[in-house]
């Protein structure tokens, strides 16, 4: 992924920063300029807790460019405890332990690498809630 496409999203990728509508309170991840519910542009920064649960998941064996190193990896849709959902990888977990409904938490990780000299991107992946204490 090119540097600008990645760099402009660092606040969301590194610390789950989104927005909260100042009028109706709806939360968005990633940020949105206008609240689609109440049509206002007034918003404040909102940092999500990083806690959530798995809605659905897959183990990927045929990856896109830049993801070959990690196969098979667990891809999931996670619902944050504040409501919004995102697509992410689940890490630091045994294959048979991943289940729908499983509590997970934010983890800062390397996302992709484009060859020997390409850009390495970092951002969020999710791991079992409480890692590494509850083994």
């Amino acid at each position, binding site marked *: 992924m090119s540097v600008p496409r990645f760099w402009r999203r660092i606040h969301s990728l590194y610390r789950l920063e989104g927005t909260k509508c100042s009028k109706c309170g709806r939360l968005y991840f990633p940020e949105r300029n206008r609240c689609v519910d109440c049509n206002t542009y007034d918003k404040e920064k909102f940092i999500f807790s990083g806690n959530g649960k798995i809605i*659905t998941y897959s*183990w*990927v064996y*045929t990856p896109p460019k830049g993801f070959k190193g990690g196969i098979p990896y667990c*891809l999931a849709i996670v619902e944050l405890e504040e409501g919004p959902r995102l697509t*992410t990888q689940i890490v630091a977990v045994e294959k048979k332990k991943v289940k*729908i409904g499983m509590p997970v938490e934010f983890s800062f990780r390397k*996302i992709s690498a484009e060859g020997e000299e390409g850009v390495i991107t970092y951002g969020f992946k999710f791991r079992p809630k409480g890692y590494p204490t509850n083994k």
Partner: protein
Amino acid sequence: MEEVAIVGVGNTKVGEWYDNSLRGLTDEAIAKTLQSANISPKEIDATFIGPMSSGLFNQQEHISALIGPHSGIFAPALRVESACASGSSALRVAMMSIEAGYYNTALVIGVEKMTDLIDIGEVTTALGTASDGEWELGVGATFPALFALVMRAHMHKYGSTLEEFASVAVKNHKNGSLNPDAQFQKLVSMETVMNSRIIAEPIRLFDCSPVSDGAAALIVTKKDLAKKYTDDPVYVKGTGSGIDHIALHNRKDITTLESTKRATKEAFKRAKIKVKDIDFIEVHDCFTIAEVLALEDIGFCEKGKGGKFSLEGETALNSTISVNPSGGLKAKGHPVGATGIYQVIEVFKQLRNEAGKRQVTKNDIGVTHNIGGSGATSVVNVFSRGD
């Protein structure tokens, strides 16, 4: 009822055509189409062409200008893109331009030449651009993976089974074995499907449509001009299109294609039909789960029961509803931008009793269902033999 009719069609066989190009495949489809409609290039007022991603697959944009003149057609040309629904979307734009009175007759082309890329990671990435590039593809999602997320959620919510999904692939291969234009013309067993290589769990190789090359074209004209070109025109009764969030995770229910429900509602309203009026349908089975969702969201069966409906044989050729008589994307192949036009061509042939061994016996009304991405775009078109 729309005010347009289809009077001629032409396509290449679907396959892996390493010895042919985007331009060459399209030229073949156009030549067959002109012959089929017995029309001269001078009578074509406009061309609409739908590849999904000639830029990424072939390093070639501006294909509106690449295609027509090469085949001797100098009518104004426009490219229409909505991922795997590009072909159907091009047809919709052509119909609109005719119904608006702007043109009388248009050439519509769907094409994709995917095997110019030989690295599967590059193909996966090119296709992945039909998902949310930053928030899905950018974190490692692929199309098989996105549909795997849907399949897992569907199994969890409704108790659908791997056997039910496999039955979709078995049925479509059976139909494809009767289609000389299909990429795969051989039968597969439940065991072959269920034991094939894992691509993105729970999706296996035989749950997936293949990487394909193909071009398909048709002539659409004003209803009152149709008989000039053929004694047996196919009429467009109604067209509908719907969208939803591009990212699966932003949709209200990830096991429902709201875009399909929206497109179906519009198309059925314009065509003045109900689901029970449909005799056969070509649905977008890019993965077996996608056919199951289509059965449910178009309304052939109760939500959550699409897999059971399939496993019980209700969708086989000449059963309750013939689904994908062509073999579908699974067996006929899926040259992504061309798929919507191949679907219309199958309906055209079925309605005119030209489908050979796979001919459906009830053929008054046929429907196509074509989706883009993981279902963010849907196009549904209803066709009939009589006006």
